[in-house]
Every structure is written in structure tokens, then in C-alpha cells.
């Protein structure tokens, strides 16, 4: 009865998962670069490259976490607020205001580690709300979106903390092999996340939970733990991003650090071709998405178009990206 089996006709696609979507994103990026090579003066200088890369690192780092959260069918609105918390904590720690440990290597070390752990803890809290109480992720993370920045502001009394700290100075402006440290950091995060998604048990389970939670549960996957972990990772990465922002600025302003970051990160994910419905994750796509948005803004600015207009263009790019996704998915 072989011929009775009806197997849906299918086209052969690239072996690379999501190859098609990724190809489109990559193509857009290449076109954008080509345009700039022709039309933008000084585009080929290293300076330009670093300006663009340093501006995009924090977005990419946060967006990697966001991609993973979205792959489980969730969303994390609290990332910007968690950046503010981590950014507010670090200066308090290395200046000895919080722990009473005077300035020195120990305080510096703690200033790197503790804020990130705290942000991760808050991420766990998000995950706990989502996993334990089955609260919709938008609402669960809305709590810390609202309260988180408030916590950072309360800690610092809303004051700008300007500082001179050698360790943070290095994080903000230092280079290794001529490449900014933060770019190394970003590359590491992207590399690890890509590997986790592609090769590890956790990566598979993450996608399974996002693809069909009930099925994952019945197959014995620890759904709650998987979700808590993914929000924790998002919190951790937000914490790191918060430190980078204050390191670049040599100051921490709880009112501004990470403001609007949740939207930038989600935009990068969307432009990168990861479906917001869950079950899929393309880390490289997210990286490309963030690069496109950044390069677009740079292109417009360097051609004398104001930042405000860049926002409108960015909006159009996001819409076009999801529209293409939509058309591609329709049968």
C-alpha cells in the first residue's frame, strides 16, 4: 500500500537550517555594505568598523539572550531594566559604597561579577514567574521592566555616577590584537550561543519547548527548568551588556542605561529571521539583524539624514523583514 501514503511535496532547501531566511538577511547586509563602499567616504577605515561594532555589541549580546527566550515561545521585556541595575551596581561596588570593600582589585573583581549575577538572579525570577505560575512572558517580564529601572534609580538616587576605574576603562576602550575587547566579548557570546543551539542537549530542548510545550512535557523534558534557565541567561547577558555600557561612558546613569534596549533586541531578532512564535532560533541571523540595523543608521547619519528619520527607516526595515518571513512561511 506504499502508494497510499501521501507525503507532502517539498522543495529541497539549503542544508543549513533556516538557510533561506538567513540568505535574505545576509544579502541585505551585503547590499548595504556595497552601497556604503560606493557612496560613503571613509567607509573602509578601521575607525568606521570599530565605531559600528562597538555601537552594536551591547545590542547583539542582549539580542542573543532574546533569541533564545523567543525560541522557547517567550519574550523578555526586562532586559533594559536589568542592564540599568547591573550598571548601577558596579560603580557602587568598586567605589566601596555597597560592600565596604575599598577600591582595589578585589572590589573591581566583585564589580564585574556581582552585578552580572544579580541580573541573572532577576532573570531567574522572570523565569520562575513564567514557569511556575504560567504567567504570560509579556506580563511576567513587564513586572521587572517597570520595577527594575526603579530599583536601579532608587539605588543610585537617580544620580549620574561618573567614575575613573582602570578595569572598567579597559573593558570600555581596551583592545586585544587591535580589536576592542567588547567585540571579542560579543564574538564569544555569539559563538557559544550558536554552538549551544546547534550541538547541545539544552539547545534541542529549548527549541522543543518553544515548538510544542505539551509534547516536550510528555517526552519528559524538564520544561520549567529549561525556561528558568533561558530567562536566567537573558538576565546574565543583560548584566554583561549593562557593564559594557557604563564602561564605554565611564559613568552610570540609571535613567538611561539600557533604555529601549528590549525593542532594539527584539528588532534584531525579527530582522534576523527568527520567528517570534517560538521553536526556532538563528543566532547568526540575530547578529546579522543587529548589524543591518546599525549599519543602516550609520549610513543615514553619514549622509546627513537625522537620527529621527533613521528611526522611521528602521521601522520600515523591521516591517519588510517580518513581511518577507510571513510570505516565506505561507504555503
Amino acid at each position, binding site marked *: 500500500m506504499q502508494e497510499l501514503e501521501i507525503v507532502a511535496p517539498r522543495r529541497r532547501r539549503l542544508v543549513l537550517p533556516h538557510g533561506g531566511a538567513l540568505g535574505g538577511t545576509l544579502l541585505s547586509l551585503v547590499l548595504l555594505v556595497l552601497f556604503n563602499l560606493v557612496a560613503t567616504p571613509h567607509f573602509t577605515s578601521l575607525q568606521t568598523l570599530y565605531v559600528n561594532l562597538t555601537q552594536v555589541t551591547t545590542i547583539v549580546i542582549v539580542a542573543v539572550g532574546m533569541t533564545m527566550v523567543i525560541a522557547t515561545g517567550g*519574550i523578555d*521585556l526586562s532586559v533594559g531594566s536589568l542592564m540599568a541595575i547591573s550598571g548601577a551596581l558596579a560603580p557602587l561596588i568598586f567605589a566601596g559604597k555597597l560592600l565596604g570593600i575599598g577600591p582595589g582589585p578585589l572590589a573591581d573583581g566583585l564589580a564585574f561579577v556581582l552585578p552580572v549575577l544579580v541580573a541573572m538572579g532577576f532573570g531567574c525570577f522572570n523565569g520562575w*514567574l513564567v514557569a511556575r*505560575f*504560567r*504567567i*504570560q512572558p*509579556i*506580563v*511576567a517580564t*513587564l*513586572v*521587572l*521592566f*517597570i*520595577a*527594575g*529601572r*526603579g*530599583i536601579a*534609580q*532608587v539605588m543610585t*538616587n*537617580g544620580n549620574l555616577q561618573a567614575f575613573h576605574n582602570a578595569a572598567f576603562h579597559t573593558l570600555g576602550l581596551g583592545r586585544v590584537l587591535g580589536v576592542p575587547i567588547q567585540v571579542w566579548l560579543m564574538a564569544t557570546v555569539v559563538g557559544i550561543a550558536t554552538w549551544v543551539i546547534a550541538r547541545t542537549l539544552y539547545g534541542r530542548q529549548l527549541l522543543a519547548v518553544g515548538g510544542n510545550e505539551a509534547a516536550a512535557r510528555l517526552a519528559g523534558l524538564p520544561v520549567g527548568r529549561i525556561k528558568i534557565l533561558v530567562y536566567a541567561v537573558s538576565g546574565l547577558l543583560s548584566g554583561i551588556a549593562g557593564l559594557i555600557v557604563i564602561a564605554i561612558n565611564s559613568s552610570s546613569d540609571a535613567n538611561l542605561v539600557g*533604555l*529601549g534596549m528590549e*525593542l532594539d533586541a*527584539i*528588532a534584531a531578532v*525579527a530582522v534576523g529571521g527568527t520567528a*517570534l*512564535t517560538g521553536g526556532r532560533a538563528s543566532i547568526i541571523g540575530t547578529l546579522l539583524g543587529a548589524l543591518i540595523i546599525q549599519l543602516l543608521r550609520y549610513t543615514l547619519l553619514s549622509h546627513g539624514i*537625522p*537620527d*529621527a*528619520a*533613521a*528611526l*522611521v527607516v*528602521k*521601522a*520600515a526595515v*523591521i*516591517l519588510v523583514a*517580518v*513581511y518577507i518571513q*510571513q510570505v516565506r512561511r505561507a504555503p
Partner: protein
Amino acid sequence: MSISGTSLADTIAVGPSRHAALLQRQGVVVALVLLILFGAWRYDDFLGLYNVMSVLRYNSMFALVALGMGFVIMTGGIDLSVGATAALASVVSAGVSDVGLGAGLAAGIAAGLAIGLINGLAIAWARLPAFVTTLATMLAARGLALLISGNQSVSVSWETSFTDLGGGDFLGFPIPAWIAGIAFVLGAVLLNFTGFGRAVLAIGGNEEAARLMGLPVARTKVLVYGLTGALAGLAGVILAAQFGAGQPTEGQGWELFAIAAVVVGGTLLTGGMGSVGFTLAGAMLLGLIFNILNFENGKGDFTLSAYWQSVIRGAFLLLVVLLQNRLARRPS
């Protein structure tokens, strides 16, 4: 052949029981009453005319935004663009306020409506996800507001009666409160007594079914997002009139405040169920928390910085959501 007896006996409560659902929504009213009683007991001028009027005046625009958000959420959608839309509308209406009150009002609402319709068309016709679409139009509306205003606030004309929309009174009540009040009454009628309202809830409850039942799904969605945009535009007009200037950078986080108000008001974020009245209560509740913080600081027993308000709002949202969750899960 009758299955009436057994089908009633077999009735299985799949969702939250009716009582729990009722309690879940009325919880917001109870909390509101308790908060008002607390305020009246603790602060002398809390129920004073001045405070009541200024609370109403200041919170009207938030309530309008929450009203629109409520409708969108009932269809199972979401609109992140409302804050930026309000900012755009405030700039536009301030710009034409020298023509007069009517022109300012119309221009602001039209700007909001335009953004809303773009949302609606993209979501209903191009079938883009609401979250991303409105995220994009949020950026676009903000960009437009900044472009039109040249990155500055646009002062309104004081020659015309435009500022009455923010600061004026009518029959002893602030005009913004009248506007919001009328909008909520119309909204309640629209939701409960028209085919449009039923379609909104049906779409949120089961979009595919609504389509198969022959309801005009796309049209309803376009209208809902248009309505929400127009309400955000109206809020923007009031904003401009109240502050005497169009504010291109104002309205950040309004969308999330509105979502919080809607959720606190017991509307399911998944759509299909909701109430206009409780949304109003939710918005009032969140507004009052800020008001009470001010009073507490004024009283001087201890001082909470203004930054505490967002912490408390967040904690409050958490409380309500956890409570809703408990009630919804209680076996009937």
C-alpha cells in the same frame, strides 16, 4: 433522545469558574476602593476637591490609552505604538493649535488614526505579527514626531481655546475627565451592545472560528487598531493642551503602563474576554498609587523618592497577576 439532563450533569468547567472569573475582575474594584479608603483615612486632603480634580485631569490621557489597549488586547493583539503615537499627535495638534481648538483636536486624532490604520492594515491584511508591527510603527511615530518638531517641544497657541482641552473645566469637572468619561461610556456600549464589540471578543476567543462564522475579521481588526490609534491621538492632544506644548519625547512606556492597567483590570492577555469598566478601574488604580506616594511624601513621616513609584507599580502588577493566577487556577 434528550441529553439535557446528562449534559448539564456532565458539565465540566474547563476554564475558570464563573465565580472565580467574577472575583478576578472585581478584585480590581475592591483594591481601588480599599486604596481610596486608605487615602481618605490617612491624608486630610486626599478626597479634597483639588486632589480629586487633578487626579482626574492628569490620569485622563492614560485612561484613554488604556481604553484603546483594552480593545486591542481583547482581539488577542497588542499595540506597542500608543505612547509614540500620542507624542506624534501632541506635536501635530500643537502645531495647528493656532487655528483653533477644533483643528488641533482633529489634527491630533487624525495623526493617531493614521498610525492606527497602518497598524491595522499591516496586521489584518498583510498578517504581520502585532507585536513586531506595532514595535516598528512605534519607532516610526517617534521618528516622525522628532522630525516634525525638530527635536524640540512645540509650544501651543495660547490665543485660541486649545489649552482648555487640558486645563479647562466644564460643569465643575476637568474637560479631559469629561472626554475620558464619554469615551469610556461609548466604549462600553460599543463592546457590549454592538456587533462590532461581539466580533472583537469572538476574534480574540477564536479567530479561525470568527472567520468561519462569517464575521468581518480583517475589517474589525483594522477598526480596532484605528480606534486605538485615534484614542492615543486624543490622549496626545490632551497632553499638548495640558503641558502647553507638543512633546515629541513624551509617552515612553505608556504602552506598558496601558497594558498593565488592562491586565490589572482582569482582561485576559490572550484575548476573548475583557471589560471596559474594569480597565478604567485598573488605570485609576495605577494612577492613584502615584498620587498616594505624593501624599506620603508630603506628610513627611518618611520620604520615598519618586523613583519608588515604578518599583511599587511593578510590585503591584506582580501582586495582581499572581492573584489572578491563583483565582483562575482554583478548581471549581
